[in-house]
Structures are given as structure tokens and as C-alpha cells.
């Protein structure tokens, strides 16, 4: 869980960093250039396979943990007060992960599938991902789903970040305050960046003008 978790934590930095190019509000110019690099560079394509593998292994490990942990207590407590000894989100990683998976399916359907169809089915047809984001986030319910997904991500990371360090044996008086602070900082920054994207498009803080678009550079 920890190894794949770290891998996914690293991916989120790249993902949030690249997507933050939309905040330049240059009608998607920079974002589309970086997006095109990410979808065409063969090293990135290769790493993408690793990302999917990491995600699938993370899910399988989670399911195995869940199955073994349920089996470890065949008779449940009649009276139990877990809130006295642990945080709700540390106990709800499976639920939060499931919500994230549902969100991921929606998310990939929105942005990943379209990019791939343009790339492979339509022989590398011009594809303006920035325009697509702008369009998708005009619907309020899409924005709502994205914000819910980010809330699930927030709590998943709040536990997952420091938990991954603990699983790999990094926990002592010297390191734990640093790790905890870094975990909270990372989680807040990543989730805030992601949450601002649909909000900024929806409320017109960043704009898109179709006429001006020469968004796809010639290769």
C-alpha cells in the first residue's frame, strides 16, 4: 500500500502542477502545449502504464487488506466507540478509496477518453483539452461531483501520506512532526489546486475564447 501510495502521491504533484497552467489564463496556450507533450512523449506514455499498474495494485492490495481484516473479527462488538481512539478518516480509507475510484471513472470519461480518441481513433486530430475543461465545468453538477471527489481525496491523503511513512518504518520523535506537517501541507495545496480548477472555469475566473485558438502547435 505504502509503495504504490507514494507513487500515486508523486503523480498527483505532476498532475496538479501541469493542470495549474490553466491559471495562467492565456486561453489555454501553455496548458495545451504541456498537455500535448504529456500525451505524445513516449517516456511519459511509458510512465503512464506504470501509473495504471500502480493504481490497480493499490486497489488490489486494498481489497486484500479489507478481506483479511473483515475475517479477523468474525463476531462484531455490540458496543464500540472507535471515535475515542482514532480519527474517522483513518478508519474509512476503504470507503474513501471507493468514492475516489467512482470519481476516477467519471474523471477519465470526461478528459482521458476524449484525448485518447482524438489521438488514436482520429489519427492525432487536433484536440483542445483546455476548451474541453471549459465546456465540461460549465455544468454545476459536474463541478459538484468534482468537489466531492476532491473532498474524498483530501481525507484519503490526510491519513495516507503519514501512514505510508509509518508502513515503511519512518516514525520517530524527530521525523514525525516533519512528516505530519508535510502531509497536511501537501494535502491542502494539492486539493486546493484541484478544487480551484472546476470552480475557476465555472465562475468565469479563467476564460476561453474559441476564435483566438491556434491552440495546437504544429509538430
Amino acid at each position, binding site marked *: 500500500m505504502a509503495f504504490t501510495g507514494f507513487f500515486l502521491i508523486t503523480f498527483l504533484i505532476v498532475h496538479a502542477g501541469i493542470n495549474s497552467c490553466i491559471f495562467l489564463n492565456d486561453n489555454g496556450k501553455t496548458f495545451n502545449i504541456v498537455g500535448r507533450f504529456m500525451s505524445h512523449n513516449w517516456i511519459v506514455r511509458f510512465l503512464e502504464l506504470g501509473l495504471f499498474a500502480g493504481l490497480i495494485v493499490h486497489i488490489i492490495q486494498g481489497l486484500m487488506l479489507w478481506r483479511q481484516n473483515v475475517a479477523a473479527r468474525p463476531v462484531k462488538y455490540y*458496543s464500540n*466507540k*472507535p471515535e475515542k*481512539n*482514532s480519527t474517522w478518516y483513518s478508519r474509512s480509507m476503504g470507503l474513501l478509496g471507493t468514492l475516489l475510484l467512482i470519481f476516477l471513472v467519471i474523471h477519465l470519461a470526461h478528459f482521458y477518453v476524449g484525448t485518447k480518441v482524438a489521438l488514436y481513433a482520429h489519427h492525432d486530430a487536433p484536440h483542445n483539452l483546455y476548451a474541453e475543461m471549459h465546456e465540461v465545468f460549465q455544468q454545476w453538477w459536474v463541478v459538484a461531483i468534482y468537489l466531492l471527489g476532491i473532498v474524498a481525496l483530501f481525507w484519503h491523503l490526510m*491519513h495516507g501520506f*503519514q501512514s505510508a511513512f509509518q508502513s515503511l*518504518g*519512518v516514525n*520517530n520523535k524527530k521525523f514525525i512532526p516533519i512528516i505530519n506537517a508535510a502531509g497536511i501541507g501537501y494535502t491542502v495545496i494539492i486539493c486546493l489546486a484541484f478544487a480551484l480548477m472546476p470552480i475557476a472555469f465555472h465562475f468565469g475566473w479563467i476564460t476561453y475564447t474559441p476564435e483566438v485558438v491556434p491552440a495546437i502547435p504544429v509538430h
Partner: protein
Amino acid sequence: MEHYNMNLTLKVWKQKNSKAKGGFETYQVKNISSEMSFLEMFDVLNEQLIEENKEPIAFDHDCREGICGMCSMYINGQAHGPWQQNTTCQLHMRAFKDGDTIVVEPWRSRAFPVIKDLVVDRTSFDRIIQAGGYISVNTGNAVDANALPIDKKDADAAFMAAACIGCGACVATCKNGSAMLFTSAKVSQLALLPQGAPERETRVLNMVAQMDKEGFGNCTNTYACEAECPKGISVSNIARMNREFLSAELNSEE
């Protein structure tokens, strides 16, 4: 602290044997002193049951000083009851008010099957210890106590880990029924000291393997174990065991 007496309703798990299907029974106890320990309150109840020609409730206890690790009740949804760093025998009735209803259950874990009522079989812990929780020593006279220099910091950390009384509250309270806190305390205690060095790697591998074999769950780092541990064993021991395990795995050629 002011002394008072109380009447209580107790909802206690009764189970004839490991095969039988158990269930809750409700009892009333009267005039319980706030100065009594929780087990003394159970003694009063059992005396009452014996007088009524009923079968007393079976529960584990030994030293009643909070150091042996025998008592093991899940009281009102918490291992060893509502107080922090405290065993059931050291839980005093001043933790409760007149008229309270108290639910008492045995530890719930596949690796701790109920023997009778509130008594569970914790020999799975013994088998984890047998798998590697020991050191090899030469026979003959005992070595002089200070012959082997040990860093004060390591000695203290080993002592803190050795405070584990093996009561099983960590397993009982863990949402996954994991025995990582117990096993890691026992691994840490020996890994920190030079006496534990010869079996250091086989110890952690064998104890973890035995722990998994016993059917305990997996650690998901909720840290409920540390919060409920009567001896305040730190989850940094779990991190240490994870380190020991990783390094032993990397060195292992089997």
C-alpha cells in the same frame, strides 16, 4: 474525591464454551462503592449469583495491580473501559454514575476465541513469542549486570517496549484485529539490545509469519492500539518492526 454508592445495570456477554452461541444477560447490582475496582464489582455480582444458585460469570484476572495483563474486558465500547493507560482491574467505579448501564464484552478476534463468557484464549500471543521472542544465552553463571555497555537511549526505548503486558487490548480495539502493536513491542524490546542481536533477523521474520498465521488482521495505521494500550506502548514500535522486517527481508536469501 467524594465517595458515593451506586446502583447499576450490567449487560454482560455469556457464552457456555467456545462452540456455543453466546448472548447478553442483564444483571442488577446495588450499593456499589465508587472506591471499588471494576473487578471487585464483578466479585460482588458473582457472590450475588452464587447465593441465588446461578452460575457466576467467568472472567480473567490475576494480579489486580495492572501489571500482569490477564484482565481483558471490553467495557462500554472500549478496551479496559473509559480510562486512558489503564487496565480493567485498575478501572475504578468512580468512572461511572448511579443508574448507568454498562455493557461488558470479551475481546473480539478470530485469533482470540472465547473460552467462556468474558474469558478468551490468548495463546496465539504465546505462539508469536515462541516463534522468536527470545534470546540465546550461554549456560553457566549469570553475566554481570553491567558487563555489556548499552546506550541509555536504547535501554530506555527497550524498557518502554518491554512494558507491554500482552493483554491483547491492541487487538481488541483495532478495527482490523491486528496484533502489530504487541508483536512490534516484543520485536523492538530485543532488537534494541545487544543481547537480541544474534537472532535479530530471523526473529522479526518468524514472529511476523506466526502473527499472520494466527489470523490477526493487518495494520492500517489508525493508531487506536496506542490510544487504548494500558501501558502506552507507542506505534513507533510498529515503525521499528517495519524497518526490521524490510531489512531482514532484503538480507534473507530464503
